[in-house]
């Protein structure tokens, strides 16, 4: 006998069967309990966050000094267009167009932001001056676009303040 298994070399008596069945019942019990626990604690919606700020807040003195050397970039967001201001000069406004899902088409904005990033590679801050009538969905899309275009420090302020 090796490991409790009959190798067929034994005596004349009744041979034990060679095939052994593992008792799967405890394993199935464990699986069932685990599945119930995991389903109960599962998070079905994947949520993320976009962090926004007011201009200059929480920035260290060193960062503020560095930002002063760079030309600030501001996007004035209205319902119909986006006006980009770099330093004191205003660029051509980008008219807001929408896709079939009614989302803002950001291709032109992305191109413009990439261009600005190449001009000022150290610039990480951007300010969105938003009008009251702008929808939250559009604001989030623009913030998302700015972060995706390597401007991670996004500030949001009302348009009237600017």
């Amino acid at each position, binding site marked *: 006998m090796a490991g409790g298994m009959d190798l067929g070399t034994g005596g004349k008596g009744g041979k034990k069967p060679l095939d052994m*069945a593992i008792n*799967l019942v405890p*394993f*199935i019990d464990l*699986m*069932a309990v*685990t*599945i119930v626990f*995991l*389903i109960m*604690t*599962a*998070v079905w*919606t*994947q*949520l*993320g*966050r*976009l*962090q*926004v*700020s*007011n201009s200059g*807040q*929480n*920035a260290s003195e060193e960062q503020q000094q560095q930002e002063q050397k760079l030309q600030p970039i501001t996007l004035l967001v209205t319902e119909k267009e986006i006006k980009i201001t770099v330093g004191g000069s205003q660029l051509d406004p980008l008219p807001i167009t929408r896709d079939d899902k009614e989302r803002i088409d950001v291709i032109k904005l992305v191109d413009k932001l990439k261009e600005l990033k190449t001009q000022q590679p150290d610039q990480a801050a951007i300010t969105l001056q*938003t*009008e*009251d*009538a*702008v*929808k*939250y*969905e559009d*604001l*989030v*899309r623009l*913030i*998302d676009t700015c*972060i*995706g275009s390597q401007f*991670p*420090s*996004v*500030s*949001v302020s*009302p348009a009237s303040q600017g």
Partner: protein
Amino acid sequence: MGIQPPGKRYGKRLAHSKIFGHGLAGHKATNADLNVTPLVDMFVILVLFLIANFSATGEILAMNKDIQLPEASNTDELQLAPAVAISKDEVLLSGMLIGRVDDLTREDYLNIPALEEKLRDLKKQFEDLHNAAGDQGGFKGDVNIQADKKVTFKIVKRVMFSCASAGYGNIAFATLMQGGGEKDKKPESASR
């Protein structure tokens, strides 16, 4: 006719009867084994899928059926913090009603006094709790804004201003994560 062993002998008609005839000898096993292998396979796949999607932090924001969150791809992981929910009809702070959107839209103030007061209370509770435990400087001022995608910036602006006035300056907009964003490839954070 050959030699038969002694015993009962039944006629032709009953020869194959299970009760009387040869059927008596051919017993079928009464215990039938159920093949559980496919079941175990399915369980294993299900467990692996659920473990892959398992979130140790749990559900940070309670999803409200009146709030349809916008989608974003360059997002960070949501932190546990007080949540201000803005639906099309009302503004809530951690489930408590703060005001109705129609009323808040009509007013021209920049802040929402009720929200500011509630947030100050929350901040005080947090600080008292941490002071009692001897933990200094634990307050980061994090707050999550969970707004419906159709809400106008006028309301969001008032909520943001109220949060900042109450000391909650670390404002984060809650969004639904869009798969395959650039942030997934290269993590970065949007900071003040």
